[in-house]
């Protein structure tokens, strides 16, 4: 189901990023990643929920039942302090690596 073969570490980062602004339920996270990536990244549910449970177990997110705007019960996930710290670290790391890769790819060949 991983259409674009999102690596596990990357998926964790995307999920954390999606939760950075507000708590969300699982479906919402999928939708947000899809939106933000302009439909390029589709997170398969077969990997999303395992990732959420894993992040929760690791203490980066917590979850609680809440009510949606349509009055349905859903499990909302939010970042913990650990999670914010991890996201910051991951982003910095990602930017360094992607810049490095871009430099390599963009280097002039003579």
């Amino acid at each position, binding site marked *: *189901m991983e259409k674009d073969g999102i690596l596990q570490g990357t998926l964790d980062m995307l999920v954390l990023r999606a939760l950075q602004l507000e708590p969300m*339920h*699982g*479906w919402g996270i*999928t939708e947000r990643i899809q939106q933000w990536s302009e439909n390029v990244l589709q997170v*398969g*549910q*077969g*990997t999303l*929920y*395992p*990732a959420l*449970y*894993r992040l929760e*177990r690791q203490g980066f997110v917590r979850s609680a039942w809440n009510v949606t705007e349509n009055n*349905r*019960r*859903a*499990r909302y996930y939010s970042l913990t302090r650990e999670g914010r710290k991890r996201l910051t670290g991951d982003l910095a790391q990602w930017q360094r690596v992607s810049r490095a890769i871009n430099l390599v790819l963009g280097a002039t060949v003579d």
Partner: protein
Amino acid sequence: MESMKEIWRRIRSLGRRDAMERRLDEEIRFHIDQQTEKNIRAGMSPQDARRRAAIAFGGTESARERVRAEVRPALLEDFARDLRYGARVLRRAPGFATIAIVTLALGIGAATAVFSVVDGVLLQPLPYPDSDRIVRLYQVGSTGSRGNVSEPNFEDWKSGTRSFKAMAEVAAFVRVPVSTGGEQTMTPGATVSREFFEVMEARPVVGRGFLESERRVGAAPVAIVSHGFWQDRLGGGRLGDLAVQIDGALHQVVGVMPAEFDYPLGTDFWVPREQSPPQRSRTAHNFQVVARLADGVDLRTARTELGALSRALKAAYGDETWMFDAAAVPLREQLTASARPTLLLLLGAAALLLVIACLNVSNLQLARASTRQRELAVRLAIGAGRWRVIRQLLAEALVLSMAAGTAGVLAAALGVQVLLALQPGNVPRIEGVGVDLRALAFALVAAGANAAVLALVTALRSTNRDLREALSDGQRTVAGARGERARQAFVVGQVALTTVLLAGGSLLARSFIRLLAVDPGFRTEGVLILDLTWPYGGDTATRARRANLQQQLIERLGALPGVEDAGLIDEFPIGPGYFSDGQFIEMTRADEIQSFEDVKRLGEEAKSRAGYASYRIASAGYFSSLGIPLLRGRLFEESDGPGAPHVAVISESLARAKWPDRDPIGRFVQFGNMDGDLRGFRIVGVVGDVREESTEAPPEPIFYGHYRQRYVSRFSLVARTLSPGVVATAARQAVRELDAQAPLEIRTVDEALDSTLAGRRFSLTLIGVFSGAALVLAALGIYGLISYLVAERTREFGIRLALGAEATDVLRLVVGRGTILAAIGMVIGIIAALALTRLLEGMLFGISPTDPIAFGGVLLLTLITVIVASYVPARRAMRIAPATALRGE
């Protein structure tokens, strides 16, 4: 800290497991609902929208599996569930489970039982403080042989070395008549010198040790007794004025040793050496010497010092001593030396059996893995993680090993009992042997690891395969060529190891049969032996009276109804006893030798006059009763009484060795060294050879004196009868009428011979059982593999048969396959056996370790087994109906 928290969290998560599943279900439902709504908003029909949403989600079960895998902390619970599942799977395959469990239990049980005995007998330290510091010291003779020590040499060792903290001499009486009031019984005892209890670092638990005042000639006789003797024979009461009659003299009991004190092995009483006069001869080798190493001195240093001193003594005393060197051996090693080869042999055999059992189970597991491929593929397809499947298989392996382990524990406990019941009675320290927990743990781990590694390999291989391939192709692709090759290798290995075991068993069996066929030189059927012991020594009148009593005993016995002939010998040839032997001198006339100086002088002057022989005392009836033929001259006669010139009869081999081309009859011989009587013998007859001690050794040259002329206090009466069982009671009564007290034991020659074979029978029985079990396992392995091959190739055989192949061609093909595998195994096995059976050399009799008949028999037996084991499944292949086979699947 961290790990404690983790464990606590895991334990709590057990209870939260159901909550987690419920939460996940709800989340998934919510997710799909949301997607459905979105799809409807996008204009799909509600039905379509839901279907699409479900598809977009992917397998819900797959998601669940992966979430569960993420919530891994509940390992304990998973583990329990895996085990339950494993047990269920095994219950569904009862045939496989039963065979695997029984096979492993057999291997575990045998290996553990044998190791337990090896550990208890060979490895456990002796029950004395710092027992590894106790050594046994030996004189070493000119040929390098170790032997007992003479008293002057012992005294020189004691005063001339510094490596030992204490050193003592011990003379073990094999058995002496002991009475605690009432009938006398033969009891093993020992005289021990001053430092004996210091060497052993043991003290009496009741009473006291010997006083210095009790350690001199003429002191009142005292004895220390064993705990068992105190309990059983003395009633375990206060020592006070307890006394025992030992060899005719009353001894006061002053002490009782602890129950675990047992040296020399089996000894029931100890008396002080210093109560009898010192021995002056450096060639009277009457003592065992034990010593305790001094603090900080290692064995090697002690050996060096003792050896140097002994060689110096040899240089100083020349021919006066026969000691050329000395040897020191740790006491435990010395005590267990006789049992060591047999036990190590059995240990090797049991270990082989365990390996064979493991191979067999491996084989079964691989076979099963191939049929379960589809099940595993399905589990993988519905989203079970690879690790999940692997763990499942491991859990199954664990369940199997645990079941086998439990059965193995029972088998080991039973095995130890069987070993104790079968053991020939001469294995030291065997009484305390119990199942050894370390050995059990090792065997369990070995079997478990074997199962686990196999499960892992199977799992990795199965989960690596392309799912579609496995699913679509059913059982066919399964386990593939690699699995088959592995199974073939297992079968080859099994056959090879089985061949090794069988070769050992077959060599031992051939030796045993050969030994049974040995002619001991005397009649064995229907001969009764009555062992009697009278107090040693006595004055001339007493001795004459007792010799008369011996004559009466022989006559009384011979007159009993059913007794054809009766006689007397000082030591019956077969069985344990003192078979005294020594040097004699041939004389030119009966009275050439007047003193021991003459004996010594003549022996040194003319080596050609000296000879060596066993020294026996017998009556004429002994030879006729046992059917030992008179070859030349005459036997003892009525006229050879106490007052007549002393006469002797010699064995054929002595005649041949000493007088190869002369007539021994009429020659004079001096054997004064043996009983201190300097009257010479005139040889009057030559009789046939007999084997002494056991039938394994060739006949020794024997010299027989007449019991009327040379009194012996310890003797056996023999009676030839048609029904020894019936006569035994009457014989006992007859003896008791003449002597109510003396210890009397009655046995038959058959029993005596049998007891010399007990050790061999023990190892042969066990090796036989082990190699039989190995053969059955190998047959099972081959049967399983061939059955599998036949099932695999049903289609092919169908085609062959349809194309006109004869059923026998198919049969030949299948059986040929099994035979080729077995042949490879046998070749490897034979090569290994040829290398290993050399270790057996000391246990063989009359055959070489590479005996072609023994090896041929093994090959034949294995071959037949293999052919039968592959024939059964091959018949199934023959009967394949081509049409069914082709339609198949």
